[in-house]
């Protein structure tokens, strides 16, 4: 009996010698299940499935001792997981936040495009009551500075401007002008900012109007033109 125990112990040690060097291997982003399959993941509870997917995506790439860089991720699958999560819970802001501030920090325009498309789809659903417009704004930002795709940024900015409601920051409405100014369409940007100024005068805080005039005078107009423009000369001394 003791000999048998000793033999099994030796066998166990042999197995250990083989297994001790085997480590968790990064298998990249897992395949995306169907909507029904994902709900089964949460035992029929869609909200649980959403939260499990959220935690899984947040910790993806961490294989114990190693952490994979974002550029190694299969972003097509990341996009599919994000959209699946969006079907499971269209109201939560967890996955959009993860997409905007974590997956959106990738430098490659191809990979970033998937994230921008997702964010713009989520932001487009803004019904005027929540904060979904923020994800559209984030999409504009990533398209402008990450993808460097100004036509796309302008398209998204135009959509964002339709989401403006009283009580929301005025820059939502001004976003197309910012992109126009960046892409060289100074005339268009000037016209839009001027129209907003006229429309919102007396309705929004003076600080918002001052900020608009400041942008016109410092980012749209050339210094010579700004010096002659009555708008710029009317600015308080600290903003000139």
């Amino acid at each position: 009996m003791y000999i048998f125990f000793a033999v099994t112990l030796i066998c166990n040690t042999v197995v250990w010698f083989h297994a001790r060097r085997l480590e968790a291997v990064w298998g990249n982003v897992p395949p995306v299940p169907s909507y029904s399959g994902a709900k089964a993941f949460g035992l029929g509870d869609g909200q649980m499935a959403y939260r499990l997917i959220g935690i899984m995506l947040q910790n993806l790439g961490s294989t114990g001792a190693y952490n994979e860089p974002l550029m190694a991720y299969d972003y097509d699958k990341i996009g599919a997981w994000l959209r699946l999560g969006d079907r499971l819970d269209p109201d939560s802001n967890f996955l959009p936040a993860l997409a905007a501030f974590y997956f959106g920090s990738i430098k490659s325009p191809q990979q970033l495009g998937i994230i921008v498309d997702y964010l713009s789809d989520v932001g487009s659903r803004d019904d005027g009551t929540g904060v979904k417009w923020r994800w559209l704004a984030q999409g504009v930002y990533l398209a402008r500075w990450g993808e460097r795709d100004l036509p796309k940024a302008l398209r998204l900015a135009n959509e964002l401007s339709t989401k403006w409601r009283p009580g929301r920051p005025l820059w939502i409405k001004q976003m197309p002008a910012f992109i126009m100014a960046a892409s060289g369409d100074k005339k268009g940007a000037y016209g839009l900012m001027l129209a907003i100024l006229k429309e919102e005068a007396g309705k929004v805080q003076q600080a918002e109007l001052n900020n608009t005039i400041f942008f016109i005078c410092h980012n749209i107009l050339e210094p010579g033109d700004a010096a002659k423009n009555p708008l710029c000369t009317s600015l308080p001394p600290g903003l000139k």
Partner: protein
Amino acid sequence: MLSWTLVKYVMTAALRDRLMFALVLMVIVGGALSVFLGSSAIIEPDRFALVFAATGLRFAGAVGIILFIVFHIRRAFDSRDVEFLLSRPLSRTAFICSHSLAFSLLALIVSGVVTFSIFAVSPHSNSFGMLLWAVSLAAEFIIMANAALFFAMVLPSATAGALASIGLYVLGRLMGELLGIVYTGSYSHGYRFLALSMKIVSLIVPRLDLMGQSSWLVYGTAASTVGVGFVLAQGVVYSLLLASAALIDLVRRQF
């Protein structure tokens, strides 16, 4: 029809079996683990903790009830307690009705403790959503208590009874998805027979996927297709079905 002594006997057995102690331990460990896991989320950690606690404790509570009931009944058969009880002036109907009532009361207590712990994890969650969730959890646990009673009476082994009950629970939780696949017709012709079988099976499987939805706790019940009426009706209908099936089995049994 009912024997209050037997009801009291079952409740005492639950206390002696340390079911309540295990329940409190489960709630503390489950709640703490959910808060720990939820706090790792970059935003909405309170919602993560709430959903993890609600879903985890719901499953753990159902499994706890099933295991206690199945092992209690099988032990009663093995130690000949059932034969002894039936030799007293106690009808078989009273035996089943008393056990069904006692187990339903236990299920109610477990669901109450789980609901209280969920409220403790997130006291600011939607109040009507919490109410509907609590009522549906109680109904679900009562259904599963009667299902465990039925399987424990019908199957000769405690392990088989427990596995069958847990299998029914999982099937009930997945029934919505399975029926969804059947009704959308997204399967090949070869699976038509299976689809038909699933439709027939769904007749006698409770729709547990419609109960205890954690989205009620997070967003309320405005978008829900299920109300208190459905939850209570399903609880009563399935509990009666399962208890009467257990009664038929006991009446036909030869000792």
